[in-house]
């Protein structure tokens, strides 16, 4: 009996050590792709990452071909994509933020009610919708009636994507505020409206703003829904009823055109910088405005 114990104890210890090593190893391996991707994008993208990227519109395929045959760098940049992203995402923000705030306020104040539970469930449902299906919806609701692709359609699609995220972060943030803020405000004779706008929303600013930033960074990189709605354009466009480009759309266009393929990395680099910047700012805001 006493002979068996030391051996099995040793093997248990070995198993324990092995498990620990494997866990650390696999965790490390899980992080590796990130560095590979960033390295790839930076190394291949910095060459074309210059002022032209921001100031010129995309070159035509022919011009690019000529340049390559002459050994020149590809002319042009992605200005139309940058302005397009600003337009489409900007409009999406205008649509989804006020709506998301109101719905989040409603959900945080009507917790037990059956209607609120239904809305909450549906919000989760919307959050889980694949982006391509949202693209189909925006196609059906905006592209078809307007008779063509447009920035507006793209914004509608992106705002449907942003809405559940903003609702959730607003609701969760407000729920975490001490109930006594609302009560103290009301006890001073204030109207509910004033309590919400002058006390609750300012107090929850950190969490709410972080949620909005994260929603923006999420949709900035979306391609699929825009393929079905905004389509793209080779010129700078500020009219919401016209087809418009966006940075991810341009990357897709470049990918599919052998003459323009060199531009994909600098565009991706810009996209990654914007997204990571937004995430970083969101982290700072969350830390600074901790409830």
């Amino acid at each position: 009996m006493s002979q068996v114990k030391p051996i099995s104890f040793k093997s248990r210890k070995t198993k324990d050590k092995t498990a620990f090593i494997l866990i650390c190893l696999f965790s490390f391996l899980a992080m590796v792709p990130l560095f590979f991707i960033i390295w790839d994008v930076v190394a291949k993208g910095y060459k074309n990452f210059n002022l032209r990227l921001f100031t010129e519109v995309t070159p035509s395929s022919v011009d690019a071909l000529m340049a390559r045959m002459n050994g020149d760098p590809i002319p042009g940049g992605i200005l139309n994509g940058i302005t397009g992203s600003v337009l489409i995402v900007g409009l999406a923000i205008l649509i989804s933020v006020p709506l998301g705030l109101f719905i989040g306020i409603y959900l945080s104040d009507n917790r037990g009610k059956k209607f609120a539970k239904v809305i909450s469930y549906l919000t989760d449902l919307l959050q889980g919708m694949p982006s391509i299906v949202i693209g189909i919806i925006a196609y059906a609701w905006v592209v078809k009636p307007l008779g063509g692709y447009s920035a507006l359609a793209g914004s509608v699609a992106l705002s449907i994507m942003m809405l559940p995220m903003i609702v959730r972060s607003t609701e969760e943030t407000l729920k975490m505020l001490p109930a006594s803020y609302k009560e103290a405000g009301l006890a001073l004779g204030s109207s509910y409206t004033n309590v919400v706008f002058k006390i609750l929303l300012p107090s929850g600013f950190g969490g709410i703003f972080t949620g909005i930033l994260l929603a923006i960074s999420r949709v900035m990189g979306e391609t699929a829904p825009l393929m079905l709605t905004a389509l793209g354009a080779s010129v700078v466009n500020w009219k919401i009823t016209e087809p418009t480009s966006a940075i991810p759309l341009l990357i897709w266009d470049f990918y599919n055109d052998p003459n323009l393929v060199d531009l994909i990395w600098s565009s991706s680099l810009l996209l990654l910088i914007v997204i990571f910047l937004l995430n970083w700012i969101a982290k700072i805001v969350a830390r600074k405005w901790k409830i």
Partner: protein
Amino acid sequence: MENIKITHSKNAILQLKDVSVSYTPEKFAVKKVSTDIYPNTITAIMGPSGCGKSTLIRAINRMHDLYAHITTTGEILLKGRNVLEMDPMEVRRMAGMVFQQPNPFPTMSIYENVLAGYSLNGIRLNRSEKDEIVEQSLMSVALWDEVKDVMSKRGSFLSGGQQQRLCIARTLALKPEVLLMDEPTSALDPISTNKIEELLLELKQKFTIIIVTHNMSQAARISDNSMFMYLGELVEHGNTAQMFTKPQHKRTEEYLTGVFG
């Protein structure tokens, strides 16, 4: 429990007549409470947990309006007007409330916190009016000297006791008739508690104070009159000194001698 017969005095500033508060048609948190509160007195409401004392005090400033399933019946006459029939916002300006957990609004400075009652109600004041109200309110809670140089800062760096005095100042700034206090010192240390009790004794010269407390010695120390509640009913009420030395009901005596609660 025997029905307590009281004759409502015309001098009372606040009269409760058969006030009941229920969460469901069967569950009553407060059962037919009747009493008078006199001006410039401190009335303590005591009782074990769950006796309904907080529920009662919140009925006075219509806080139950926030919750759809709570019904309040009876009459609550504040200076002759039934609070339950008035506009709740007006009621709350006449009856201010201080809560257990000090809660200065985190995004406002000390200065703005004191004036919160005005800004939230959309009342516009010019600079000198504002300064006067802030100074008066902070002086009446003995906080003026401590914060007059840091009024533009947020209130979060103040100690618990100072924060609570700030909340009292904020309530007093609206010049209410009655001050409702829901266990205002439970979350504070003994020294701060002491300071606030002294403050209340001073404030009663200008205001009428109702204080819910689970601390009997606090009630004994500062209140003129006391109400003892048990399971939603008002068991006994009257002059504090008398109640403590010669309680008229067995329950009261049991509570005061620490048999329960």
